[in-house]
């Protein structure tokens, strides 16, 4: 399966990946020029964590081999897809209990800020044949996609 890897040494906190993620998941069609950067509905699905001393850690969903979020989800809204190995979310089945948010050891699932009625998580840009937009947007090559063995 494919997974996003990070090299925190290379990340300079430019948040270009964040804009790309927002653009990739916006509800309305359009270009990055008219992406509403103030609209919470366009929230990104990852975070860039700063240590306050000029170093950054890009935090992306690991699509874990044994995902705690999936294990915690009782409604079946989160599933590890057998063919891709990616953890995907089905909003329609979600009970908004936020057990997944509590259980992800990396803090990668989050309630959406606009409505607090669903969760937001990385879907590996499943609708884009070119793969994760964040990865393509990173000028520092601090994040990349790699094929890994599933245990």
């Amino acid at each position, binding site marked *: 399966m494919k997974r996003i890897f990070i090299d925190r040494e290379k990340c300079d906190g*430019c*948040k*270009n990946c*964040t*804009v*790309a993620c927002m*653009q990739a998941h916006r509800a309305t069609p359009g270009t*990055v*020029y*008219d*992406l509403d*950067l*103030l*609209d*919470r509905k*366009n*929230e990104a699905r990852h975070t860039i964590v700063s240590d306050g001393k000029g170093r950054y850690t890009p935090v992306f969903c690991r699509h874990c081999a044994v995902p705690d979020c999936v294990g915690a989800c009782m409604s079946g809204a989160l599933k590890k897809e057998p063919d891709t190995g990616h953890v995907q979310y089905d909003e329609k089945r979600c009970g908004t209990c936020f057990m997944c948010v509590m259980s992800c050891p990396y803090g990668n699932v989050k309630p959406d*800020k606009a409505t607090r009625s669903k969760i937001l998580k990385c879907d590996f840009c499943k609708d884009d044949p070119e793969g994760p937009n964040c990865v*393509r*947007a*990173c*000028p520092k090559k601090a994040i990349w996609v790699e094929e890994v063995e599933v245990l």
Partner: protein
Amino acid sequence: MNESCYGCSTCASADKPLEGFIAGLPMETSHHRVESQETKCGFGLQGVCCRLCANGPCRITPESPRGICGATADVMVTRNLLRAVASGSGCYIHVVENTALNLRNTAIEKGKFKGPGALERLCKLFGVSGKDDYEKALNVSNAVLNDLYKPEYVKMDLVEKMAYPPRFKVWKELGILPGGAKSEVFKGVVKCSTNLNSDPVNMLLDCLKLGISTGIYGLTLTNLLNDVLLGEPEIRMAPVGLRVIDPDYINIMITGHQHTMFVHLQERLTEPDVVAKAKAVGAKGFKLVGCTCVGQDLQLRGAHYTEIFDGHAGNNYTSEAILATGGIDAVISEFNCTLPGIEPICDELLIKQICVDDVAKKANAEYVPFTFADRGKQSEIIIDKIIAAYKERRPKVKLNLLPEHGYENNLTGVSEVSLKKFLGGSWKPLIDLIVSGDIKGVAGVVGCSSLVAGGHDVLTVALVKELIAKDIIVLTAGCSSGGIENCGLMVPEAAELAGPKLKAVCKKLGIPPVLNFGPCLAIGRLEIVATELAEAIGIDIPQLPLVLSAAQWLEEQALADGCFGLALGLPLHLGLPPFVTGSKVATQVLCQDMKALTGGQVIINGDAKESAELLEKVILEKRAALKI
């Protein structure tokens, strides 16, 4: 240079032979660097990255809707835009200042005026006179300089004399009549510093004000002053493309916008003793090879320079390729469009770089500052250095010419004066064609080439093709002209590409469907044409079925020019937004509300077909309003 493959990743070009040539070069150009710069910062694209203080860079996201100081997206965007427009205006004001100074000094020294008609015209416009041409030129140049040096709180005198009265009225009502042009740049820069102005609309109005001073002085008057010293444009046919480089001569490429700095040197280069110097080292003499806007200007006035000027080789992003032919022996720079990217190529091919104005001092150029009093001495220094370079480099450098590139028979020398003369001394024939619908409308396609709007000249050339196919005649100025002519749209045979009605008009007159007014400065000439057309019909400029496009706008200067277009009330198409879309206020004012203020409007679209349709729609609306 290293051994990596330079040809694998060049950007596309509308000019396919050029694209192939660049892809095959053994050295790197801008066209090769597009790919490695492909990842663009989304905040920067929207204009919401603020670096004005040590708190920054601040960026706008849903979690951080304000900068640390409290600046909103609207404030960040308009501050950044005003900075850019002030800087662009400053560039053009520098050009007109030096041009006026050179005219003034020529008058004092009783030098030669190649365009006496232009001098009379300026005297009439300004309402000044003098006992002879020298005094007249002195009074004209002083009138310009006096205005440029006024403080910001004193309005310039020539604005009312130069502007179309209905426009002047609108500007006065909006409170955007400019004070001294240099001071306006200063004011603009002050206003957009940190923690000063935070009123986006107020800053946008300043952009219009800077647009007016840029347009009237930096663009229009620079042309007219140049006409006095360099000679007026005359319609003629001329070759374009890399084909113009003749390796039998010592070839000099000049880059910039301040042509009056070359008057003396240019004259010297054809004098027998200097030609003899060239012959002594094995060349037939000297030639100037046109490149960027200064080349467009030489081409425009080519009737006066047949002996020294070889032709126009290409525009801004063709300059690296022109140098890479090895056929150029020296580059003399005096202003912008002198890409930093030419430096390693000049080093590798032993091309001598000389700079005559330190605003364009290149890292590896020798600085021979132009001062009017010392021009004789400086010309000799420059000539000797170039001869030495020629002798040194020619045996060592392998030529890689492209003699088939470009076109032989391009219509050039078009100006507001020569075009009117061509039409029989009045605009009536053109107006009649517009009224009858044989010409649906007029599009001014101006600006530079940038490499990211589809590639080198890609959007510009495609848009022009779409426009002429819709029977819209295209007038061009700027580096876009250089690209359009290298793609064959300015030869009379290009009439075949026009729609049936425009094609018939072109065939009857023996002209191409795209008329080249020359350098970007000549955007001022296009705007004179617009004014004179409006005057002849008895309407205001925004009512004309006329649109502007800077499809591949590149620089801050283009933004200042664009603000003039908006102040004139013209619809202005841009292929890429000018880093403003992060602000809802700026976008709303520029694309919508401006229509109620000046009549102007920004239209942003990166697709040639769609853009042409949008511009056609505007033209049809204006036609309908005029009941034609």
